């Protein structure tokens, strides 16, 4: 072969080995293309939501930021362009949705931040784009359609009346959020101007969305969980539970008192629940429940877990294992101790009770539509799992109904919505003897029901401040 004079000498095997190498590399290239496609289809959508993604900002040079709409189509946030092409973002319902809708002027927060991509993406038709191109040189971004209800939120806002606190109202069947109110608030229209004041205001923390980020001791609302743990242990004979309340319950050196030092006397489970008897539940948790029952129930209901909202939210905390001590267990069973919950977390539990034990993921956004109001995508209802049996849910509903009929939430009895719920009082460290007032519950008419969770900070223990707020909301919903 070294003479190279004749081409005939080529053997089939020489050629074959070259073809083999070619095929090998062709396979490598094809694999690479397959991976690029996989990357685009699978990896890309997840990655685009990464908090490190700043590439999205560049669209704003060609797209006018879309609007955020309330469930009735009113604009909660929109961009107006003046004659010189300057864009201003307006929030017509400023304070009501301050933390939830957020702002997009000075950094961004809330839905403005979470749906930045969608708002700067444009799905208008080609013709529309060409028209815009000729005229304004900019496309209209897509709109984010939320489930937020302006009037209901206003009712909640008025009911809270300037007190610190938070309100969550959700559609009971779908877990769509109708109201997500947090007080104190701020005016998103003037964030840039007020910035210095807002970020230094530590006592009010106006940027904190208390409804989903605020962590509070759940107080007696936690008795829903303690009761559920008990129902799991005694599925058939729970109604045999009986306890004689003497106003105090001693565990070693520690004494649990009932609120206002009241003495409840002989109690069934329903009585203990509706009267919110601390002693009965402390006794139950320390004597009748296995060691990990509370922990398991709390975690099944979503404690110590990310909720999976697209807005920044806090994880509700439950911790009993490492400090296992009967006095701590007793306190935990009545919502004190180390347990911390967000109003959203408690609303989700109430929603699961309403929904026969199936917990749904709360959603703020119904879907995305383009500037011509054509739906681009819809948010599907996602189940977070069956967190209790429908039998247990039914019993809890019954117990929560009795709280309204003859217990601590009697203020709701007059509203024609068959309200069910649980009140709570969360003590915290202060000199005035104030406590946070809780209510969590739902209407149970079978149609257009809502779940309500209310926390009113710094109220007089036992004044039922939160029930009062819930009352106004339910009244607005069912009496008008």
């Amino acid at each position, binding site marked *: 072969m070294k003479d190279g004079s004749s081409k005939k000498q080529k053997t089939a095997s020489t050629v074959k080995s070259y073809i083999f190498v070619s095929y090998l590399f062709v396979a490598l290239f094809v694999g690479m293309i397959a991976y690029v496609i996989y990357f685009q289809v699978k990896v890309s959508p997840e990655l685009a939501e990464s908090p490190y993604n700043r590439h999205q900002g560049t669209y704003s040079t*060609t797209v006018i930021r879309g609007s955020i709409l309330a469930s009735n189509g009113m604009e909660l946030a929109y961009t107006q362009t003046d004659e010189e092409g300057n864009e201003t973002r307006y929030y017509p319902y400023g304070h009501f949705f301050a933390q939830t809708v957020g702002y997009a002027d000075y950094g961004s927060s809330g839905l403005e931040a979470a749906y930045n991509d969608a708002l700067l993406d444009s799905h208008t038709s080609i013709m529309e784009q060409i028209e815009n191109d000729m005229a304004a040189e900019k496309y209209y971004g897509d709109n984010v359609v939320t489930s937020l209800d302006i009037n209901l939120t206003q009712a909640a806002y008025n009911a809270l009346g300037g007190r610190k606190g938070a309100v969550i109202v959700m559609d009971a069947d779908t877990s769509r959020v109708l109201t997500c109110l947090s007080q104190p608030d701020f005016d998103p229209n003037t964030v840039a101007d007020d910035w210095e004041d807002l970020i230094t205001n530590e006592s009010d923390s106006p940027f904190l969305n208390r409804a989903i980020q605020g962590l509070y001791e759940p107080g007696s609302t936690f008795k829903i969980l303690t009761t559920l743990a008990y129902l799991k242990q005694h599925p058939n004979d729970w109604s045999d539970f009986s306890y004689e309340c003497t106003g105090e319950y001693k565990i070693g050196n520690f004494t649990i008192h009932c609120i206002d030092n009241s003495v409840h006397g002989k109690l069934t489970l329903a009585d203990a629940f509706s009267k919110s008897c601390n002693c009965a539940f402390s006794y139950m948790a320390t004597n009748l429940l296995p060691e990990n029952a509370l922990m398991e129930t709390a975690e099944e209901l979503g404690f110590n877990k990310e909720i999976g909202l697209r807005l920044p939210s806090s994880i509700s905390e439950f911790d009993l294992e490492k400090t296992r001590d009967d006095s701590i267990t007793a306190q935990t069973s009545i919502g004190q101790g180390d347990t911390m919950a967000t109003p959203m977390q408690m609303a989700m539990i109430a929603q699961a009770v309403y929904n026969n034990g199936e917990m749904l993921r709360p959603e703020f956004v119904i879907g995305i539509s383009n500037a011509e109001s054509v739906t681009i995508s819809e948010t599907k209802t996602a189940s977070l799992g069956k967190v209790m049996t429908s039998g247990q849910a039914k019993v809890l509903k019954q117990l929560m109904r009795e709280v309204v009929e003859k217990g601590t939430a009697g203020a709701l009895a007059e509203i024609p919505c068959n309200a069910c719920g649980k009140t709570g009082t969360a003590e915290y460290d202060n000199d005035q003897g104030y406590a946070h007032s809780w209510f969590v519950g739902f209407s149970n008419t079978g149609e257009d029901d809502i779940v309500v969770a209310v926390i009113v900070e710094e109220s007089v223990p036992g004044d039922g401040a939160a029930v009062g707020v819930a009352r106004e909301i339910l009244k607005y919903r069912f009496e008008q």
Partner: protein
Amino acid sequence: MINIIVELSKYLLLAFMLLFTIFTYTAMRAKTASARSDSTRAQLVFMLLFNFLAYAVIFLQKPEPAILIIYAGITLYMLLVNLVYHLAYKKASVILINTMCMLISIGLVIITRLDVDDAYKQLVIAIGATVISFFIPIIIRKAKIFSKWGLFFAILGILLLAAVFVLGRVYGGSRLYLEFHGITFQLSEFVKLTFVFFIAGMLYHSTSFKQVFFVTVLAAIHVVILVASTDLGAGLVYFVAYMVMVCVATRKIRYAVLGLGGMAGASVVAYRLFSHVRVRVSVWRDPVADYQDTGYQIVQALLSICAGGWFGTGLLRGSPDMVPLVERDFTFAAICEELGILFAICLILLCMVAFLIIMNIAVKLDNDFYKLIALGFGTEYAFQVFLTIGGTVKLIPMTGITLPLVSYGGSSITCTIFMFAIIQGLYIMRTDVDDSYYDDTTFYEPEPETGPAEGTSASAYEFTHDQLEEQIAKENAYRTQENGSAAARTNQYIPGEETEEFERRIIKEAENSINS
């Protein structure tokens, strides 16, 4: 108005790219010279359209005169290269010339978009390298001498790499460049050429175990120096070229098994020994883990790819400049962002076709030394493309190597242009009686059934597959029969060491017997 143009340009640029790729493929598969020249003409048209539109879109959004100069430069470049080859080297492969020009111009468009000064530099270097490369086919005519210089090339390569390792300038944590009068050279690119000459030369003379072992030792020295100087990508490219060339030259698959085993072992050792290897791997596993530092570049590149979607943001509408060193290491990410994933897929296909053209040429060459050189270059090219693109999309760890002809980098583009010119030079030299048949690359049908597609005369060419099988059977029979006496017969052949020459002689005899 500009918005519409940019928006439409995305789809048009993709269409031009797609058509260019399709015509490159049809040109390669064309059976007749006229069909082939139709396709190569179409290649040229779509290449010119692509450049016109791309620079128009950039210029409309960023009206700098330098952009027009670059456009004029690259357009003239493409036309002149075509013309020079047409006039001086009629037998050259026009498909390969056009493919090379297209790859260079895609790169130049994206570099112009990122940094006009860099694009200008890149263009000047490409022109300079191409002018020099016009003389390569003349030099390569004496290429046979080079087959004797295998050891010289090996020592030259090792010395150059060692010089970089000892004297090199530290750039971005790596010691990859040698500075000379203010110009930096990435010598591992140049050594890529000598490396192939060294292996081809040495294996051409003998494929005995002793020789293969010797080649392995010399190749290993190359690779070890590269890995030690943190040029992992080049190290891998060298290694794969070495392995493929040895396997093809010896036709022993066990060398591949040994080679892969050796590579696995060496990778483990390198992982333990060198922290920069560990960093690359951990960044690949979880780039977000060390986002602020080592993971930053790759995360930004991935986000850049995401931002584009199927059709891209349009030129100058994305923000690929958020990726550090984008024009050097992540050109592919910038292309994905602004021209789209579909365009990027076309680019991968085009690189694949470029590789197939080279392999096709390798098959057509009549001398095994030349064949091995073309094979080595083709392998280096293909594997480098795989490492760059695979690294950019995080299929494999990033090795920090350029996308040949596309990425910014003077040494890289110069050497790739030289590499292509050498392949052209070898191709031009092929001796064939029937010139009209060989006036351009004809795709070699990859089905094994076709057997050798070439011959010196029409009668030889009419060889059927059956006849060929017969020859091989005869050859095998002959070999078994003569196994003991073969050494005595040919004097220089040791039993069990089947060289090509041995096989060819047998086949020639077989052919003669059939033809007569």
